[in-house]
């Protein structure tokens, strides 16, 4: 079967265990050779099928990890195509790094369930299993879509939306001039257009370079615990720290008011800051603490907002909710062991009032005192930042890599337009790549293109007879 080459992380992320990246397709061997240096200086293409090799993964000259590589040539493989499996020392960061590398060297990130789909279409999987394969594909897709969109912070998705609408507008302008050259002219257009496009290029590059991806996994998720005094912030932190699975290190915070703890939540590093209550205060000493808390909320990757459900919401809660609209947050309904004065429904109502009805927050009932709800909290964090398929039947993937791949596709399209301009190509060839960029960014937001361009043309430009 003539198909492109796909890759994905194929094991569940476990703490410190072995991780595996699977590559399948006609270029699997050559793609792998582009990131590998085998012991003894040979390449995989020299090797026999069904053999295992020791070597290192390199990014240019930087060594990424020590690996064992399995080579299986089609049709004697899971997908009946050439399959390479790179086994590394795991660690989420390394796995993702290798996957990204493989993608940048010619593979495409596998769609959810795609290995199994190929295995089926290439006759590897039995007919009786067809139905479960179909179900699996729908389920994985829905999951990927949901977690992908949830994972975007408001800021990031806003920026992508902005870039997209600028791309669409420029495309529509060029297209309207091509369709109706007597009403709309492109004279003198290329100069301002080039400026706009350079700006878009910079912004895409910026998004790529700061993509939360690597940093979060390498340095940990900067997490802030907020809540009014006595909501149970400290006991939550202590509960998390006392969990057996948590690996604890203490680092004194920069000030007395903000203390940073590091904890490893089953493979994911959290850098937790406990803050003072957020209430507006006139006391100068206290004010510094409040300011710090506000600052850390702004810079955080994740906010854990602890709500004391045994007392009514007060002005502290209102202040906190005001600040919740930008950063991903989990709402922890604490003291679930006591009779509730605040319900999940009421919280949702309040949050909508402060943050708009389109933002939705995940709410988790916990009791910091009794340690209940901690598993759910852990799963939620994992989902927000890694979106790993923990079931891991045949593959596991990280949705963030999908975002990054889409961003860099968009960037390459924009670069192609700039190149076309440099080569003196006419405007009508720009729009093809502009729309490709638009489409790539749409993948991140889960949006289809459909009639967007035609709609924009008619909305923004006065056409015709």
């Amino acid at each position, binding site marked *: 079967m003539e198909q492109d080459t796909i890759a994905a992380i194929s094991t569940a992320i476990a703490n410190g265990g072995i991780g595996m990246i699977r590559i399948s397709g006609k270029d699997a061997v050559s793609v792998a050779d582009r990131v590998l240096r085998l012991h003894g200086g040979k390449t995989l293409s020299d090797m026999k099928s069904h053999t295992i090799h020791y070597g290192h993964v390199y990014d240019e000259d930087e060594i990424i990890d020590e690996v064992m590589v399995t080579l299986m040539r089609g049709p004697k493989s899971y997908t009946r195509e050439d399959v390479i499996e790179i086994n590394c020392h795991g660690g989420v960061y390394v796995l993702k790094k290798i996957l990204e590398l493989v993608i940048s060297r010619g593979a495409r990130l596998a769609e959810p369930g795609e290995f199994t789909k190929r295995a089926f279409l290439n006759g590897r999987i039995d007919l009786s299993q067809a139905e479960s394969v179909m179900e699996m594909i729908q389920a994985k897709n829905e999951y990927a879509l949901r977690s992908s969109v949830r994972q975007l912070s408001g800021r990031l998705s806003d920026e992508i939306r902005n870039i997209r609408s600028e791309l669409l507008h420029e495309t529509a302008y060029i297209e309207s001039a091509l369709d109706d050259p007597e009403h709309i002219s492109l004279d003198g257009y290329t100069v301002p257009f080039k400026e706009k496009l350079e700006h878009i290029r910079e912004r895409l590059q910026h998004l790529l370079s700061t993509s939360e991806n690597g940093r979060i996994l390498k340095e940990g998720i900067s997490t802030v615990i907020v809540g009014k005094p006595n909501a149970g912030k400290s006991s939550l932190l202590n509960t998390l720290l006392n969990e057996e699975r948590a690996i604890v290190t203490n680092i004194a915070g920069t000030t007395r008011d903000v203390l940073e703890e590091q904890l490893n939540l089953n493979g994911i590093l959290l850098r937790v800051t406990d803050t003072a209550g957020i209430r507006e205060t006139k006391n100068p000493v206290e004010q510094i603490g409040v300011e710090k808390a506000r600052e850390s909320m702004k810079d955080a990757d994740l906010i854990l907002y602890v709500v004391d459900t045994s007392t009514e919401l007060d002005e502290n809660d209102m202040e906190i909710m005001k600040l919740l609209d930008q950063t991903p947050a989990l709402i922890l309904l604490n003291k679930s062991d006591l009779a509730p004065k605040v319900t999940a429904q009421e919280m949702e109502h309040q949050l909508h009032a402060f943050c708009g009805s389109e933002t939705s927050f995940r709410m988790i009932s916990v009791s910091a005192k009794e340690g209940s709800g901690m598993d759910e909290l852990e799963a939620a964090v994992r989902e927000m930042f890694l979106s790993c398929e923990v079931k891991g039947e045949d593959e596991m993937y990280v949705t963030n890599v999908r975002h990054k791949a889409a961003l860099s596709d968009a960037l390459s399209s924009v670069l192609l337009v700039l190149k076309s301009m440099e080569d003196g190509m*006419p405007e*009508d060839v720009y729009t093809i790549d502009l729309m490709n960029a638009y489409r790539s960014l749409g993948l991140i937001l889960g949006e289809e293109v459909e009639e967007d361009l035609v709609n924009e043309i008619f909305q923004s430009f006065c*056409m015709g007879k």
Partner: protein
Amino acid sequence: MQYIEENYDVVVVGAGHAGCEAALACARLGLETIIFTVSVDSIALMPCNPNIGGSSKGHLVREIDALGGQMGINIDKTFIQSKMLNKSKGPAVHSLRAQADKANYSMEMRRTLQSTDHLTIRQAEVSELLTEDAAQNSVRRVTGVKTVTGAVYHSKAVVLCTGTYLQARCLTGESVTYTGPNGLMAATHLSESLKQNGVELFRFKTGTPARIDGRTIDYSRMEEQKGDARVVPFSFTTDPESVQIEQVSCWLTYTNERTHEIIRNNLDRSPIYAGIIEGTGPRYCPSIEDKVVKFADKDRHQIFIEPEGIHTTEMYVGGMSSSMPEDVQQEMYRTLPGLEHAKIVRNAYAIEYDCINPNQLYATLEFKKIKGLFSGGQFNGSSGYEEAACQGLIAGINAAMQILGREPLILDRSEAYIGVLIDDLVTKENHEPYRMMTSRAEYRLLLRQDNADLRLTKKGYEIGLISKERYEWVCQKERLIEQEVARVSRVHIGASREVQELLEQYGSIPLKTGVTLAELIRRPELDYEKLAPIDKERPQLACDVIEQVNIFIKYEGYLSRQQKQVENFKKLEKKRIPEDFDYDEVPSLRIEARQKLKLYRPASIGQASRISGVSPADVSVLLIYMDSMRKHRDGVSKKDEI
């Protein structure tokens, strides 16, 4: 009173741009064909703008020509001005547009019909579609038509090309007439018969500006717009020398604040803003009322004054279609420089009409639920003469193919603008009269007007509408292009003094080392012809061959990228979905996808993937299901053999 008139192979209802192409195709393929019109004097009438072609529409005309249609040949004989639009842009968007002499165009098409064997012309209003139960599940079969005077015409196929005539209603301000375009009789009965046959109808709307007596126009206050010095014909069969005629001019003027004020003050009398019009209008040719309201920040709009022909003094006011009352029209047209003393010959009006939701059609333009019934043109929810003509041609061809028991002609999105147009109509939701646009063609670098013959002549030949001689001529052209492309990619040019001087002459960077001729052609400031002096072994080639070589070399990278995309696209198009496929049997399809798929009944996985509401995961599910069905079938047949 009803009586049997005669039997035909094909009945074509309507003799506009779609109907004429449909009837000609069928008759030329040897089928006994009858074409009905409400007025024989109005065959191939151009009731709106007096031109053919334009951006992307010019492509359609070229494609019609390459398939053996008539529009290109006839406009070449009757144009009075011609321009290649977008010449400063890339070749993919070059577009030919000609001003037509409307009366001559209509006359020429009438002459063409009259001189075609097997073709009968009949003036009558078709009032009923005759059908019978087909043996298949809930599908009916067409048996003919009945006219309003009671005559029954039996036929094997019917092609509906009713344009804007069904239940037509024209509006000029408060004045409403129940007529078709240009005051012609509307067709008032057929809609009901179609509904009884289960056809779903939409109500669309369009409009046209006033015609003004040229004798009352002061052209000195307008900018003259001349045709091209060297005219390029539409048809690949037209001798280029035959179209170098004396051309007439168009004129450019502008609306102003005073125009806009009059319109704003009278909006309450506009049928659209007063809510009298129910139909959905096209966004690309908005009325002047719409332009003023929607683009309130624009202080003027361009208006083109175009001649309607050489036998008439009437001038078309392009850009100012309207449904304002007559007195407001008088006043607003006269605010334009040059039109201060203008006299209106015909009022501007809006027209409402019945058309179908085209999702009821297969890509062959046959109704899914009525076998033998085909349709084309504005009746299918499109707009424009060229859009109509190409659908008429395809509908006619496929009616003929069905009767002859041959494979239908379906052009895909990578083969022709016609393919894009029809795929959009039958696959996407259509909420307004559909107009072709270059931005709708995702592979447009490959679908150029200059290579329509290379893309489609073979198909026209296989169908039987293109002569062997013409086909072989295109094959020869193809060979010459290939050879020359190979040659210029091979020939090396050294950094000789002659070469450096030529480069300098065009402001091109001098050579440091030798390069191929192709590399020089690719430089923006150079092209194939400019390099003639340094290309000693260049063979003598026709200019259309040279054009192709030049484009191929200059855009090679872009073309091969699109070619790759097309290959991927074709893979999914080739996976056909059986006509009787039961989507309810497929597990794991999402409900929305299942409903849409059942409604549209796509012919291929590729088409399925373009239906809004069908996700990539649904497409994967479909693929796997179809594959498992195939394996199952193979398994069963193997067992049978044993």
